[in-house]
């Protein structure tokens, strides 16, 4: 069925956009927070951490990517199941490992490879289920 195939393709394209933005965002966030250091859970400590985060360029780059993630996430959830999109997005962890091996020549532990295989099999299993199992408003209107 053409519409079924189209739904699957646009869902996968949006999930890919989500994965790229989320990974880039998390990476910059981790880098920014490492520059700031451990947060002390006292009123002045939290105020200090807040001041440092809103003035950090790295944190703002992270926020830019995470906004891109949020937009693609909201868009895909307007037509696809949450229980389809959420596990499919985990493909990013597998992708990061493969990129680290191919481009950075990092050595990867056996445990991590087992994790990558489990994620790929899991995403394939979820990916072949129907992306949408509930009625969508726009469809009911149209």
């Amino acid at each position, binding site marked *: 069925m053409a519409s079924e195939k189209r739904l699957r393709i*646009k869902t996968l394209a949006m999930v890919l956009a989500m994965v790229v933005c989320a990974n880039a965002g998390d990476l910059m966030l*981790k880098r920014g*927070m490492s520059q*700031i*250091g*451990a*947060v002390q*859970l006292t009123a002045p400590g939290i105020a200090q*951490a807040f001041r440092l*985060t809103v003035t950090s360029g790295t944190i703002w780059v992270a926020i830019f990517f995470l906004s891109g993630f949020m*937009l693609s*996430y*909201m*868009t895909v*959830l*307007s*037509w696809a*199941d*949450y*229980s*389809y999109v*959420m*596990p499919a997005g*985990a493909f990013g*962890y*597998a992708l990061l*490992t493969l990129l680290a091996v191919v481009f950075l020549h990092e050595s990867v*532990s056996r*445990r*991590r490879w*087992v*994790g*990558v*295989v*489990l*994620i*790929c*099999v*899991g*995403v*394939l*299993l*979820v*990916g*072949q*289920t129907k992306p949408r*199992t*509930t009625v*969508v*408003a*726009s469809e009911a*209107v149209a």
Partner: protein
Amino acid sequence: MRVILALAVLILGSTGGEIAITYGMKATGEPTRLRPLELLQFLGRAVRNGWFWAGVPLMALSFYSLLILLSWEPISLVIPASALSYVVGTLGAKYILGEQISSARWAGVLLVCAGVALVAAG
């Protein structure tokens, strides 16, 4: 103890927030076309939905919990533990959003959950 508490806030905040946003997005309906203008109009409709604004503070709470956890513990402990949210989120999708979770989807979610925990543990 404080780590477990922060982790519970992280998982329940993110899944609760995402479920509220999914509910709001389903009510908003999908954009007619994936072009900048249509996406802006789509965003405009989405932010006028109350469920969206129920989700945002929950996700913000989860985000702050993540920042605090990352300043206490290594990422190789925080992310594997938060992998539990795949299971919590699927339960929420089934019982709150009424999505049909086939056995293939459940199997996939459990594999992903275990896989993410292993990958992030290093």
